[in-house]
């Protein structure tokens, strides 16, 4: 309720609702800097933070779009491993069949993203045409997609057979002219970080400035009203899940090229929760109809920093989940206000 008697408290609440995530980021940043001294403030450290979180970040960006449409995708982690397993296996097969390394790697990259898109489209089809609730349909995907990946590799690891190119994708990057790392070499910003930011910027644009985003918001805010207004609800919802699959494929690519291998039992495990957490921390409403990709990006960094701080402070990994959980709940409480 608007009321001038409550001026300051209300304004404070509004401010936190909108900018709370940035405030939290700055606070955590300060805490990290104090804990680690100058080391933390180095470009290199920041680069590593981005690197480590790029894959989850890409998932979280896609998840933002899904959640804006009042949906959810629990299968992202399994789509990551499935896409990576399919792509890497195909690439290895092509190299074995005598293809040149560049053409095999390019085919592998394309197939990884296609496999992700296919998995996402299956989710979309079940949800839109099968009329299965997104939570249930993608819960099925969570179990099924990883199991297919496990079957492909017999639960083992798929090592990339590309001697140099594939891993160059994961480990290489753009050198920054003005920065050096601790060993005195030019600091590079990795391809995975570049992809993360490119995807985030594109998604933010599409969400706030393009027709697709507008229609997603309309569907998330009130699906019936969207249908009455002539929004092609089924097609848009299908597309957002397919797109999520493509994003999972890209995340799978980032991960498998960084490791130069795919561990079918470990890759992407539990990352659906990290992705959803980042979205929620970033201020996107789980009810749909409102979202912001930039918030999600900050949310990803917040989660990454928390992990770093806890690790450096020697907190047992077993306890880290509890801390993260607390942060997520706090984020929701602070941002609840008028929206949630």
């Amino acid at each position, binding site marked *: 309720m608007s*009321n001038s*008697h409550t001026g300051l408290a209300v304004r404070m609440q509004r401010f936190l609702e909108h900018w709370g995530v940035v405030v939290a980021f700055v606070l955590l940043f300060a805490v990290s800097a104090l804990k680690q001294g100058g080391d933390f403030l180095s470009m290199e450290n920041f680069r590593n933070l981005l690197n480590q979180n790029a894959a989850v970040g890409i998932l979280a960006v896609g998840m933002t779009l899904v959640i804006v449409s009042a949906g959810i995708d629990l299968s992202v982690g399994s789509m990551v491993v499935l896409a990576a397993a399919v792509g890497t296996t195909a690439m290895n097969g092509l190299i074995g069949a005598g293809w040149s390394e560049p053409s095999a790697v390019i085919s592998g990259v394309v197939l990884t993203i296609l496999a992700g898109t296919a998995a996402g489209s299956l989710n979309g089809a079940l949800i839109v045409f099968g009329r299965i609730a997104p939570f249930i349909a993608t819960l099925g995907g969570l179990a099924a997609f990883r199991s297919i990946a496990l079957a492909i590799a017999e639960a083992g690891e798929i090592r990339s057979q590309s001697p140099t190119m594939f891993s160059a994708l994961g480990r290489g990057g753009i050198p920054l002219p003005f920065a050096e790392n601790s060993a005195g070499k030019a600091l590079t910003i990795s391809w995975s970080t570049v992809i993360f930011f490119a995807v985030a910027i594109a998604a933010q644009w599409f969400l706030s400035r393009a027709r697709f985003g*507008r229609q997603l918001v*309309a569907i998330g805010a*009130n699906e019936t*009203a969207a249908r009455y207004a*002539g*929004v092609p609800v089924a097609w848009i919802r299908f597309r957002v899940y397919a797109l999520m699959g493509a994003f999972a494929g890209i995340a799978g690519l980032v991960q498998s090229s960084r490791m130069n291998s795919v561990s079918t039992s470990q890759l992407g495990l539990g990352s659906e929760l990290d992705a959803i957490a980042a979205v929620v921390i970033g201020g996107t409403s789980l009810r749909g109809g409102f979202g912001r990709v930039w918030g999600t990006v900050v949310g990803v960094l917040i989660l990454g920093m928390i992990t770093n701080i806890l690790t450096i402070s020697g907190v047992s990994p077993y306890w880290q989940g509890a801390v993260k959980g607390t942060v997520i709940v706090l984020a929701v409480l602070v941002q609840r206000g008028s929206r949630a």
Partner: protein
Amino acid sequence: MESQSSTRGGGAVTTPVPHMGVRSVTVEYPGVRALDAVTVDFHAGQIHAIVGENGAGKSTLMKVLSGAVAPNAGELLLNGQPTVLRGPRAAIRAGISMVHQELNLVPTLSVAENVLLGREPTLLAGIAVDRRRQQDRAREVLSMLGAELDLSCAVSELSIADSQYVEIAKCLASEAQVLILDEPTAALGEYEARKLLNLLRRLRDEGRAVIFISHHLDEVVDIADQISVLRDGRLVAQFTRNSAGVLQSADGTIANEDTLAHAMVGRELGSIYPVKGTARPGSDAAIELIEFGAVGRSSGISMTVRPGEIVGVAGLVGSGRTETAEAIVGLRRAAGEIRVAGRTHAFAHPRAAMRAGVAYVSEDRKGRGLHVSLSCIVNMTLPSLDAFSQLAGARLDDVKERSVTARWINELAIRCARPGLAISSLSGGNQQKFVLARWLETRPNVLIIDEPTRGVDVGAKAEIYRIIAALAQEGLACIVISSELPELIGIAHRVLVMRKGSVAGEVTREHLSQVGCDERIVRIASGLSADRQGTS
């Protein structure tokens, strides 16, 4: 109309204690002062009507009375004592209950559950709901209203009018001493509205204070013991019924539809209905329905609408008008044939209908017509989004979006301080204008409007009628579904009357200009023969 003199309670004659009142209440929102130092008293045993233009502050005043809005200045009196109501629950405890302008029901719960929401009769010391008593109580309250509803039906299945009954029943079930009803009759047909007004009279005679808002000035004059007129957040006139039964203001003006309208808008209003144009002679049908119907709701409907023609559709609540319209644009399963400009279509989706130039404006503005949480601009452009798309949809032309929205705000005189704010911050009537505007922006050839002026003030009504008539002159084929007979008679070239899912009769242009045609329509709608002689 019911004779009033027989039922007027003693309340108006003996000087009653003020039951409730506001003193110099002011409410401010960003960019607007919704209420500006308003002082009014509400008495037990009286019906107090509030009238005013869209956005005048009527709903805001009611929200202050029911604790939903805290005023920025001024105070609330309850039995003479200054009171602060902290939220609607506090108001309910104080015996004040309100029916809001927009529906606030839980769609997944049943009628009975909604009626007794928050005051369920319980069993076993409060751990279980007593279903039987819940049903009995709900039935009792609904029968006071004269509404026959299936108690176990989910509210999402109900029409707007029936949902409105449930809202009112919810309010009655609270047995509050002060009943506040914000445009309770807007969603009802004439017959249903009359039943409700009779009930309000009964409640008043039991000694309760009844406060209600309406844009139907005839019913206001008919029923109110006191009328307060708001304009731009200020109380500009008050009429009180004197011992002779005449509603009179302090300066001696007698309240009737004209004087009230004058007080509301501050100027003279001429005839609100524009001159009827003519349908284009000899032109082909813009839309033709052949043995059409919404599966399970209506059937066997054949009609033709030509460019330039305005066809009214009358009928009682539940006669299948809305369902048929929804079936035309692909929102429901349809049977039969639709031809648009000579070509046969079967629309699977409103989008397909829109491509063929057929638009449907829903009657349910909160649930289906608008996205209440989104901004005015987003709401405005959603149906015609393709026209704002650049680069295959990768960019929306936000400059054009803003200018189109501003144009309609201007054209329909919509009160909207900031188009970037959520549309829920607009008053109900102004939201209604937006619903219409967004569909006109799609430039349809065939426009189906369901209750075009629900909750719209007299001045704005005239404006909407003028726009519809002008578009018809330019060749728009228009189907107007309405429960307001004067409206249909005033703007339509002919009126189809629906009853129980099929067309029961048609009133032609010649008949529409004759006196007594409203009675004729009502007779057809209720299944009597069109002419009085026929039944005697």
